[in-house]
């Protein structure tokens, strides 16, 4: 009983010892904050990666892809049917995108993703990232009459883009070409559809190109077949096939705010290699119908979505006799509780590895997620060191306290206190200090996390330096996730270190001979 009583009394009367646990408190608080932010960051990243990628990606190892997507899907269904919620065939193809900014053509190297409009939305969360409410419901690659959603900091040109933007542009474009000199017209005018713009050094060169055989076949069945081959193509009424651009391409952020390079309603030129050997460029004019922002800059600047059939046709992937088209990948969505790795292994066993590869979305971004995980581990090791150092602080101040309390220890022993009892006074003192320090640290950490945005803003205002630059990290707010288990582990470890630090001083106290402690000086 006296051990608890004295421990409690020391705790209440000896404030100086509490100073020694300040470092424990700070260490615990920092660890909780860092883990919360890292976990939030990881979750956010995973969410974004997963948003674009489906659960499992079944893909060909080459750009030619494999024929008969329906047959493959049937086979996959047979193998892993119970786990699968949905599948959609896609084609991914590198190519070039050219768009006009202030009368200048800009070309980018990008990846085109051909998606099946009916099933893609069911398999991935992609539609969620689109800007037009109707597209979010169902992506059909048609141009909308304005009404695009804005994000804070964007100019409202986006809001009324779409058809109104396109009509206005057609009017001004016609006016321009009417007044401009012939040479200037040639520059500003969009190149004819059967020409392709190739960047040659620092100049653009136009190359006349023969129509691809696939185009002719596809023109018969493709509902999205652009009308721009038709002589009466009127930009104020007609559009090319729809494409969806990422904001990483379409928008730039500068010091004076965000600016759109391309808006829905603008025409862009798409060039992809044909499936012939050697490949030849195959180009067409498309109309931007919507923009997306997944938050993964890698995707937003690279991936351009278009209807599957159109991409297959441009690439020449459709067999002329049978009409069966190749696809390069099948995206598979699993049921919520299904194990992606299990499905991946099932498919890997059944399909030859040389030709097909199967990945989960995690595998796809493995290095990135591993890097974030590694950072978390290293930060935890470093912060753990802080708490360890704090442990040595406790050790030192406990040695001082025991030295100072020599006489009291002797008194207690002369009153019949056992060595174990004396030891447990100091052990429970260490335990209480650990609990106080870790508990206060936990509170501080949790309060810090709860107000992290406010604190970041404050620091930004004081230093003039953005803590989490949204243009780099893509986060409007700092993401945090408090994992109760993590907090528990941190607090327990901190308390354990505090107790460990008090073991040696407590042993010193228990070995103290009462006579030596009580000798009259």
């Amino acid at each position, binding site marked *: *009983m006296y051990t608890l009583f004295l421990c409690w009394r020391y705790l209440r009367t000896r404030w100086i010892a509490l100073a020694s646990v300040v470092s424990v408190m700070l260490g615990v608080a920092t660890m909780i904050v860092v883990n919360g932010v890292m976990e939030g960051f990881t979750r956010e990243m995973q969410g974004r990666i997963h948003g674009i990628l489906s659960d499992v990606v079944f893909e060909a190892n080459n750009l030619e892809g494999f024929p008969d997507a329906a047959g493959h899907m049937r086979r996959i269904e047979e193998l892993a049917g119970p786990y699968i919620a949905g599948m959609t065939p896609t084609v991914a193809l590198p190519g070039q995108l050219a768009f006009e900014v202030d009368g200048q053509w800009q070309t980018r190297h990008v990846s085109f993703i051909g998606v099946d409009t009916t099933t893609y939305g069911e398999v991935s969360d992609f539609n969620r990232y689109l800007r037009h409410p109707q597209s979010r419901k169902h992506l059909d690659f048609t141009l909308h009459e304005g009404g695009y959603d804005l994000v804070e900091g964007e100019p409202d040109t986006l809001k009324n883009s779409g058809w109104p933007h396109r009509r206005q542009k057609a009017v001004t474009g016609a006016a321009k070409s009417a007044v401009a000199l012939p040479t200037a017209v040639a520059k500003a005018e969009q190149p004819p559809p059967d020409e392709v713009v190739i960047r040659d050094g620092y100049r653009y060169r136009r190359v006349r190109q023969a129509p691809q055989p696939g185009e002719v076949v596809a023109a018969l069945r493709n509902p999205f077949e652009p009308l721009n081959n038709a002589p009466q193509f009127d930009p104020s009424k007609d559009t090319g096939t729809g494409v969806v651009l990422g904001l990483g391409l379409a928008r730039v952020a500068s010091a004076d705010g965000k600016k759109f390079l391309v808006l829905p309603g603008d025409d862009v030129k798409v060039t992809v290699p044909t499936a012939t050997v050697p490949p030849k460029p195959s180009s067409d004019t498309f109309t931007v119908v919507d923009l997306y922002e997944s938050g993964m800059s890698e995707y937003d600047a690279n991936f351009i979505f278009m209807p599957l059939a159109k991409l297959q046709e441009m690439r020449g992937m459709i067999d002329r006799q049978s009409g069966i088209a190749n696809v390069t990948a099948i995206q598979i969505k699993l049921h919520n509780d299904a194990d992606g790795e299990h499905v991946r292994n099932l498919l890997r066993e059944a399909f030859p590895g040389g030709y097909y590869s199967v990945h989960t979305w995690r595998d796809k971004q493995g290095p990135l997620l591993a890097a974030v995980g590694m950072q978390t581990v290293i930060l935890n090791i470093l912060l753990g060191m802080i708490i360890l150092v704090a442990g040595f602080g406790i050790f030192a101040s406990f040695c001082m306290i025991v030295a100072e309390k020599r006489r*009291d220890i*002797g*008194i207690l*022993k*002369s*009153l019949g206190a056992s060595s174990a*009892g004396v030891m447990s006074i100091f052990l429970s003192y260490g335990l209480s200090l650990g609990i106080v320090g870790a508990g206060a640290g936990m509170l501080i950490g949790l309060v810090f996390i709860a107000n992290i945005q406010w604190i970041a803003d404050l620091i930004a205002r004081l230093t003039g330096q953005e803590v989490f630059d949204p243009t780099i990290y893509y986060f409007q707010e700092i993401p945090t996730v408090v994992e109760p288990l993590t907090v528990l582990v941190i607090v327990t470890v901190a308390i354990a270190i505090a107790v460990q630090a008090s073991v040696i001083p407590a042993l010193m106290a228990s070995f103290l001979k009462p*006579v030596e402690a009580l000798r*009259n000086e």
Partner: protein
Amino acid sequence: MSDMRPLVEPRRRGGTGAAGAPHLVSAPVGKPDDSAHIAAVRLTKSYRKAGMEIPVLRGVDLEVRRGEFLSIIGQSGSGKSTLLHLLGLLDAPDSGEVQLGGQRIDNLPMHKRDWIRNQELGMIFQFYHLLPELTALENVLSPLLISEGIFSYFRNRRRHVQRATELLEQVGLGHRLKHRPSELSGGEMQRAAIARALAAQPQVLLADEPTGNLDSETGREILRILRTLNDQQNVTIIMVTHDRAIAAEADRTVRLARGSMEVA
């Protein structure tokens, strides 16, 4: 102080269980009887300092009868404090025995010696040695706290607090219950220390220069308390002092010189 009520209640313990039980059977209240209550048999003790063996006690024999008030005098360094520490089981002799009620106690296991220190022996020191963090009342309670577990303490708390309060009232500190040692005078601290020594109702009181740090008037007051305890409750008292006048208050005085006992 003649109106003091008994500080030590008559014992109601059976002779079972604890080591050295036979001596616990209550002795008749009155003047010293003939049985040795606490005894030292050929005690030797030496300290090692800078590699030199310095003998402090060279075979001390001492027998104190139940209810006797003995004073030990000697010069500084004569080993009288060491002898008291050996009798109080705060230190172990190099050879010889310490006996309580005819039974050897210096070689008992640690926990039994702890128990005897707590229950059978009360100690008073020259420098009072109260715990500075505790109030006077809590200091007096501390031997009871040590002997009780958490649950039994809370069960008996009221009784213990009542006893500690009574003890403090009897030494004249009823108005100082909540005061810390730093707020008490020397005499008050020593009186609180006596109350603490009596808290567990020991039969032997070991006093190490109890008046050494007090002025003569306060010292005499402390002595009167000890005298009363001895007279009224038959507590065996061994008091170490270097002052002949103080020693004269006791029933018997022995002198310790150069590590062995002489009749004063």
